[in-house]
């Protein structure tokens, strides 16, 4: 096991390949948590885990105690499925944890995380067996099924209801250093946090910085991990790092940010203007390119629940541009992750001890 203090010269692309390949759908993050904790431990002074499963990597500041805390949140869950029912013939029906477009699933390979895991396929009907016009209708999720190719008896014995299922797709190296893999949402954010902790270890901030790999961002109406982690930490500043929609055909202008042009900074009700301004200033002085992304109401990230934790927490959202989100081929440019980490580390390292967004007017 790697321990704190060991150097790790892994490239960002290597980190992305490694961290995105971990399973861990909402509620089953323990499949990814130990590996992420080990990665944090390379660069953090302490690594802890709380009772709901959030993983914390602490970098101690050099200011005089008590020091304010900054929280960097990236969710470690990735979208996937749970086995819901086993049909005669041994076919599996699934329940989604996280939102898929069902049209991206037919024919895809998955891993059914039984012991030991088994490979399976989303079943498809060959054109030969289809009725006329059948291929003109999309298949709704409830009609999709997964076939392990194993006898029903074995499936019933080895695959209890509730077993985790994830898309199976090894990382694909595209031109220009781009990388396609499932789970970039939001393991790209987790890698950004790992890289940020690495930079901060060598350039100590005044504040304490806590990187948090949160649970259950992709499920339910509450950002469960972010909410409980920020209640626990009570940070003076919270930044969520999540993927932003990359540029792609069919998307309207303003809905996406370009790949390879640096991270995005969200602006809107979920973002404290002073934090946004500070990050933008830092980007300018470091020469880090950024895109600005308008999120007028919800940012749809952990920052939503960080902002309203305890007595209210100033927040920002850093986005890693990502094409084809919530498919098996989420495309990210590792350069954008590096730039995101440089921006975060640069900003946090310079935060003065007396920084506050609250104002006393009288």
């Amino acid at each position: 096991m790697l321990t704190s203090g060991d150097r790790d010269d892994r490239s960002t692309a290597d980190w992305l390949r490694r961290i995105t390949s971990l399973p861990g759908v909402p509620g089953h993050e323990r499949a990814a948590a130990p590996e992420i904790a080990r990665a944090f431990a390379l660069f953090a002074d302490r690594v802890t885990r709380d009772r709901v499963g959030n993983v914390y990597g602490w970098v101690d500041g050099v200011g005089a105690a008590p020091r304010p805390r900054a929280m960097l949140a990236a969710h470690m869950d990735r979208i996937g499925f749970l086995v819901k029912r086993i049909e005669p013939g041994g076919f599996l029906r699934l329940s989604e944890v996280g939102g898929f477009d069902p049209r991206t699933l037919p024919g895809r390979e998955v891993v059914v995380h039984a012991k030991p895991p088994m490979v399976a396929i989303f079943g498809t009907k060959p054109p030969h067996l289809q009725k006329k016009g059948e291929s003109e209708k999309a298949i709704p999720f409830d009609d999709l099924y997964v076939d392990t190719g194993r006898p029903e008896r074995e499936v019933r014995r080895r695959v209890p209801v509730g077993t985790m299922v994830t898309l199976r797709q090894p990382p694909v190296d595209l031109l220009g250093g781009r990388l396609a893999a499932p789970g970039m949402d939001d393991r790209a954010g987790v890698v950004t946090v790992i890289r940020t902790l690495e930079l901060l270890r060598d350039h100590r901030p005044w504040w304490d910085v806590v990187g948090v790999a949160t649970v259950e961002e992709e499920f339910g109406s509450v950002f469960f991990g972010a909410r409980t982690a920020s209640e626990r930490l009570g940070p003076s500043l919270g930044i969520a790092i999540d993927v932003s929609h990359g540029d792609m055909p069919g998307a309207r202008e303003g809905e996406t940010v370009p790949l390879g042009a640096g991270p995005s900074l969200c602006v809107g009700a979920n973002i404290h203007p002073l934090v946004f301004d500070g990050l933008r200033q830092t980007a300018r002085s470091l020469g880090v390119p950024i895109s600005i992304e308008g999120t007028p109401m919800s940012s749809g990230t952990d920052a939503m629940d960080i902002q309203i934790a305890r007595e209210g927490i100033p927040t920002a959202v850093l986005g890693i541009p990502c094409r084809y989100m919530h498919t098996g081929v989420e495309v990210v440019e590792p350069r954008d992750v590096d730039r995101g980490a440089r921006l975060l580390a640069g900003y946090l390292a310079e935060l003065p001890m007396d920084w506050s967004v609250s104002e006393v007017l009288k």
Partner: protein
Amino acid sequence: MSPASASSLESALGTLLEAYGPPGRESGVRAALRRLLRGAGAFTEDATGNLHVHRPGSGPRLLVTAHMDAPGVIVTRVDGATGSGRLSILGGRRAPELVGAIARFEDGRRALIGWDRGGAKEGTEPDADALFLETGVDGTKKDPKRRSVGDVAALEDRPIRLGDLWSAVNLDNRAGCAAIVAALKKVRRHAHDLHAVFSAQSDLGARGATTGAFGVDPEIAVVVDVAHVGDAKDSSGFSVGKGPCVVLKEMGFLAHPEALEWVRKAARSARVPLQNLIRESEGSDARAVRATRFGVPTAVIAIPARRTGSAASLIHARDLAQTSELIAAVMAAAPTKRKGGRR
């Protein structure tokens, strides 16, 4: 479970089913619970209307909770001429189920819920807007018995036993309350600091559980509820009569692995069969309980119930008894050892 405790469980169920307690007006069921649980712990009531029962212990704080409210109706308009009322539904009931049900108000008076068909075609289902309340009071007279806007009624229940099945209107979630009552009476020794909360206003969005759990600040929680056997596509194939369900996923809730394992262990020790349940469009108080403060490892135990299309649903008496035994085993179990923590 001995015949004696089984009959006390079922008599508690009968009492609770008939008690008045629509969402936000849980006075009757709260009083019934206090009577049933006399001597079983220290009672408090909070601002939301939750009933807390506390049995101190030295271990971690364990919350066992069930919602005590049951769907009802609220009067939205009273016709000056006829005295007939229009209503809105409080809680998770569909209008067709209420046609022909009897509404009972806090003062004990009754009314019939009917459907003003108007020109609705054959084969259509009533909207909530088309439901009316017939009280039998002449609207033209200034009768003091006339209902007024804002009056809240429960659905009157006349539970019957059909072989092994209970048929009743308010099983969700008086059955869960009865299971906890019997468990609290049975369990003498417990390692936890034990809090039972009978929560209010669950049918309005887990409101009682939100405040109730914040007040207790539990370290582990078990939510007890009723789960309806849905249509084939929505449910994971669970059924009535095969033992209590442990919920793996429901609306806003994913089972916490440690809490889940703890309940499964208790079930093994009590020799209670468990059904794994994944449901998509229904939920329980668990989504609120788990999100309390730093987050609470939470499990949901659900009594399977069959819908009937009418106001009544059906549960199996053995499922109820086993649920109660399971809750007792959970209360008596040793606290879980937490993994993780500092590295």
